[in-house]
């Protein structure tokens, strides 16, 4: 096992683009365990926050620090995008890609990818071109690909947006299994029910600011911030 990359510390981390603040400044520490759900209205800065944590965006000011230097931290992270990027390959080669690109022999990588596909219920689709998979299958493929390097932390950006109940249940099962195996999870969702089912703790973001960072029970039963209270009640936050 590689060195632990968590905790992740954000100190005044802020992301701006063309003078507009997308998110921040945020002060936050992510411990080595947990299943964190990020909630907030559209455009609140949830995706920007995750992208900044993962290193897809450089913070404009402030710091994002892992327990180890960034170069060592990168291989132990994975990210599932809201719209999964499908490579022009078979499902199997899509999942094997993170292994082969970093030098694992193709045969071994494919064997592992086949296992991973089976574990997300896509065993039969291994040799299909990824482009022909359905929406739910694509997200499962993206999950299998993200998990294949056994990341210490997994970021997910609304993995269940526009999926039906069955696909959502499958994906939640995969996430809980990964979590039980020790993967730290940080996930954005708009689905309150899903948040209640999965969250151990919740970050609530509005207008780029962190309005709440609580244990799930406390957040859902008695949200401290008025914005979070309104959001959970179903009011429309502007």
């Amino acid at each position, binding site marked *: 096992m590689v060195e632990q990359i968590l905790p992740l510390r954000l100190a005044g981390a802020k992301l701006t683009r063309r003078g507009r603040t997308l998110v921040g400044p945020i002060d936050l520490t992510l411990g080595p365990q947990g299943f964190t759900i990020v909630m907030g209205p559209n455009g609140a800065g949830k995706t920007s926050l995750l992208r900044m944590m*993962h*290193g*897809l965006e450089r913070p404009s000011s402030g710091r994002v620090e892992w327990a180890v230097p960034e170069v060592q931290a*990168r*291989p132990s*992270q*994975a*990210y599932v*995008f809201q719209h999964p*990027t499908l*490579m*022009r*390959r078979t499902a199997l080669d899509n999942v094997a*890609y*993170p292994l082969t*690109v*970093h030098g694992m022999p193709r045969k071994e990588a494919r064997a592992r990818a086949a296992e991973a596909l089976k574990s997300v219920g896509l065993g039969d689709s291994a040799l299909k*071109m990824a*482009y022909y998979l359905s929406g739910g299958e694509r997200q499962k493929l993206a999950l299998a690909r993200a998990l294949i390097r056994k990341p210490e932390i997994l970021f997910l950006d609304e993995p269940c947006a526009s999926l039906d109940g069955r696909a959502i249940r499958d994906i939640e099962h995969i996430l809980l299994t990964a979590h039980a195996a020790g993967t730290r999870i940080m996930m954005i969702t708009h689905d309150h029910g899903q948040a209640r089912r999965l969250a151990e703790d919740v970050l609530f973001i509005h207008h780029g600011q962190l309005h709440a960072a609580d244990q799930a029970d406390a957040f859902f039963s008695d949200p401290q911030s008025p914005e979070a209270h309104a959001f959970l009640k179903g009011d429309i936050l502007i």
Partner: protein
Amino acid sequence: MTEIWDGLRQAALLIVTLDPDLLQISARSLHVTLTATVIASAIGLPLGGWLAVYRFRARRSVIALLNALMGLPPVVVGLIVYLMLSRSGPFGVFGLLFTPTAMIIAQVVILTPLIASIAHQALRELWAEYHDLLISLNTSRRQRIRTLLWDARRALLTASLAGFGRGIGEVGAIMIVGGNIDQATRVLTTAIALETGKGNFALALGLGFVLIAIAVGVNLSIHYASKTEVSSRW
């Protein structure tokens, strides 16, 4: 009108009798242009990938220049390569002028910008698609370029075929650096130019039909070999 019929007859006759001159000239045409296409692809395709992935200050200017070079006049390229390879030129010691090698060099110069530019267009789109994923997966620039080249191979085939098309029909540069020497550097296009000059229209047309047939044949065989039109997207 009679010239065209005569040309068709001549062409048929040349092919049916497997005219040795025709075979030799056609083989040389294919050898020169295929070699040039392979070399130009080996340079141009990674260059296109590199330009798609790598951000640097002069990137836009380099791409604009590359697009402009697609229209490079072959005669001028021929002239410059001639000066480079001639006895008094910097590479004169190699004695390459008026050899097929000189013709290949000239065609590489003409084809590389074309192939690189078309490749860059295709790879830029794929890179926009793959950008976040490949960065998330912690890949090096080299790995990114290799991934793009592999996954866009169908589009890149088109780039190479466009290069081949330009090369096989090109006459200005190879005429100058090759010299259209019988049994040595004569190819289909230069032979057509010569026969037309001599007023030998039927033979010129016959060679012309053979040239078109080769261009179409190479394209078709590569498309069939790679099953381009079979699967809908890649």
